[in-house]
């Protein structure tokens, strides 16, 4: 989340502008709201805080870095708020009180971590100019990566120039499912019954057999052929579905190119 100026929450009579550096997460926002309202952290006024919290995330939905976490907190607040409205004797009311206490604990813990963060940051600044021989190799902690895409491209370019210019394109036989389907349809049209093993023998490579399987499944799916196998591991017979094959639409069937792999 970026810098936020006046989060759009009316703060009592004084509607002043507040500048906050960063809300690291839902706890940060919640803590800020509590402090801003001079509320006792041990006795959070849930309904007031909930409405301000919701008002904030509604007005800043596009600035929020991790919406899921902010929304999870919102739903927790709403749950506590609604359960607290039930009569005191109810189990829900008691559970909500427990959840409210747990939230206070979390906020207190978070407050300490924030205090410690400030101490570490200032100690870090003080130490910036002291080195030792075994200085940790510096990797920027602020950015995700010290290298930009362009620098990376530059480095890659230099490596190639340095003599690794023997890059070769790896090519292999290209077999398209559309071609195989077309071939199968042409042969089937004559009413001939095809044997899977025969077809596979034409081009006994893994790729062809794999595409062949896909092609046959595709044709079955489109109800253009039926497949039959007497027992496991025996040959598979592919037969045309006559009513469909005699129709005109067969030749138009192969369509959609690569999508066949996904839909077949």
């Amino acid at each position, binding site marked *: 989340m970026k810098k936020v100026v006046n989060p759009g929450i009316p703060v009592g009579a004084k509607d002043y502008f507040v500048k906050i550096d960063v809300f690291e997460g839902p706890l940060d926002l919640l803590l800020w709201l509590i402090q801003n309202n001079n509320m006792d952290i041990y006795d959070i006024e849930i309904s007031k805080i909930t409405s301000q919290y919701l008002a904030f995330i509604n007005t800043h939905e596009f600035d929020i870095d991790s919406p899921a*976490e902010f929304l999870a907190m919102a739903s927790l607040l709403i749950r506590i708020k609604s359960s607290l409205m039930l009569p005191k004797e109810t189990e829900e009311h008691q559970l909500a009180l427990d959840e409210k206490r747990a939230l206070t604990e979390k906020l207190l813990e978070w*407050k300490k971590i924030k205090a410690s963060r400030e101490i570490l940051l200032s100690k870090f600044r003080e130490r910036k100019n*002291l*080195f030792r021989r075994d200085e*940790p190799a510096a990797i920027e*902690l602020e950015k995700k990566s010290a290298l930009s895409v362009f620098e990376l491209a530059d480095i890659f370019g230099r490596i190639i120039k340095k003599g690794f210019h023997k890059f070769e394109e790896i090519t292999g036989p290209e077999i398209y499912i559309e071609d195989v389907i077309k071939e199968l349809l042409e042969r089937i049209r004559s009413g001939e019954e095809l044997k899977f093993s025969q077809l596979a023998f034409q081009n006994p490579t893994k790729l062809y057999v794999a595409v062949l399987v896909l092609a046959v499944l595709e044709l079955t799916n489109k109800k253009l052929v039926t497949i039959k196998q007497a027992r496991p591991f025996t040959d598979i017979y592919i037969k045309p579905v006559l009513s469909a094959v005699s129709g005109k639409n067969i030749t138009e069937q192969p369509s959609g190119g690569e999508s066949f792999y996904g839909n077949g």
Partner: protein
Amino acid sequence: METAELKKTIEALLFISGKAISKDRIATVTDSRPVAVEDAINELKLEWNSGRHGVFIEEIGGGWQISTRPECADYIIKLYPWKGVLRLSPSAAEVLSIILYKQPVTKAQINEIRGVDSQASVATLLKNSLIKYSGRKKAPGNPRLIRISENFYHIFGIRDISDIPSWKDLAEDSRSAEEPEIDETAAEETAQEDE
């Protein structure tokens, strides 16, 4: 070992190590009593830390190390530009704080305390050896446990745990029931395990 010789030896050890060595470790290596080591180091400090030298001996993470003087920083960075690159983001400092006070912790515990995912910060801190994995938690999935590492004490100039407020003292109005202490052995441990 005689004091003059011990001083010379410690000087050499601190120089070659390049990072902090604990008192006990020096005592073991030099076959001396820890008290003698402490005395020798105090004398070395008197000679070195007067301001006439570019380096000085300082106490870090429960051990001693040779550091350069701050006024020399500009020239060091001119010689080795990468030494000045380390920066610390607020979220990285937060994750470090959690690990410092709650160690050993799992990534899930860190996320729970912060209320947001901390994967990226943990990864950079690991890369910079400010934290380290040590062991696994006996829990479903055996998640890895994270601890502060030796580099941390140097980067933040922390002599020992008394340099950092206790968990109890961190924020004024803490009525929190549980008060986990900083792992007291951590500083000592890390200084020892590094050669």
